[in-house]
């Protein structure tokens, strides 16, 4: 009886997880991939601005620069394109599409892993491989994502009056890198778990 209760709980939890992941996948697909693509092709207004790092410091009103609590400018600014052509729209959308595609990939793989919960059988070689791919995707977000951002920004401002004020800035994002390494370690744990499970399969 307890085994049946536990099986029901795992079944319900697995279905809830699949539902949540499915919903997240739909939202990521819509906002991370489809809308940026439609912004490039035209039906929707594409993004026309991009946050950048500049060499100068942005100015703030003098009144807020003194007193116990002050406001200071930083090296952040925003480049805006009044009427971007198709090529510029593509360059503006590329970072969003890159991150969106990787997020969709991660969610698809997580959804497939959640489906193995239905069989009460998560320690399978496929799940270990899926976790390795998820780890690689997360590391790519932290290493390649900023590169896509930096290169597309450089191409957008190249030859314009804005160019001297915006240096080429590429910084590896540490949070996705660390998270990717953690997931890679988890993938190794899953691989070992799969091997242990295979050792005991058919054990009476």
């Amino acid at each position: 009886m307890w085994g049946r209760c536990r099986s029901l709980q795992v079944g319900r939890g697995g279905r809830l997880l699949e539902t949540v992941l499915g919903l997240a996948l739909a939202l990521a697909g819509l906002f991370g991939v489809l809308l940026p693509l439609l912004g490039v092709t035209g039906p929707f207004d594409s993004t026309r601005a991009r946050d950048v790092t500049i060499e100068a410091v942005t100015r703030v009103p003098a009144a807020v620069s003194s007193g116990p609590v002050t406001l200071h400018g930083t090296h952040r600014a925003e480049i805006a394109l009044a009427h971007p052509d198709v090529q510029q729209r593509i360059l503006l959308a590329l970072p969003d599409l890159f991150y969106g595609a990787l997020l969709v990939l991660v969610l698809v793989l997580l959804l497939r892993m959640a489906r193995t919960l239905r069989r009460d059988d998560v320690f399978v070689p496929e799940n270990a491989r899926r976790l390795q791919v998820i780890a690689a995707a997360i590391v790519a977000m932290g290493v390649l994502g900023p590169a896509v951002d930096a290169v597309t920004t450089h191409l957008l401002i190249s030859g314009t009056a804005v160019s001297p004020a915006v240096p080429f800035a590429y910084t590896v994002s540490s949070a996705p890198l660390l998270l990717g390494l953690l997931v890679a370690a988890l993938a190794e744990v899953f691989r070992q778990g799969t091997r242990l499970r295979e050792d005991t399969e058919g054990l009476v």
Partner: protein
Amino acid sequence: MPPEEDHRIEVHLDRLLAERGMTLAELAARVGVTVVNLSVLKNDRAKAIRFSTLAAICRELGCQPGDLLSYRDS
């Protein structure tokens, strides 16, 4: 259960049960193993057997491990 590689160990559980007039379910209850697992053993689909399970089966059937298991030469 995936196809088993040929380990050449034969299990004679069905013969021993028939000789003693015992069902698989009765033996499973006495040994403390599930009927499913004993069925896996009876049908030559097991890959390994715990010594504790082997000892319990021999105790309940009044036999030796050699009566239950044999090695097929070819």
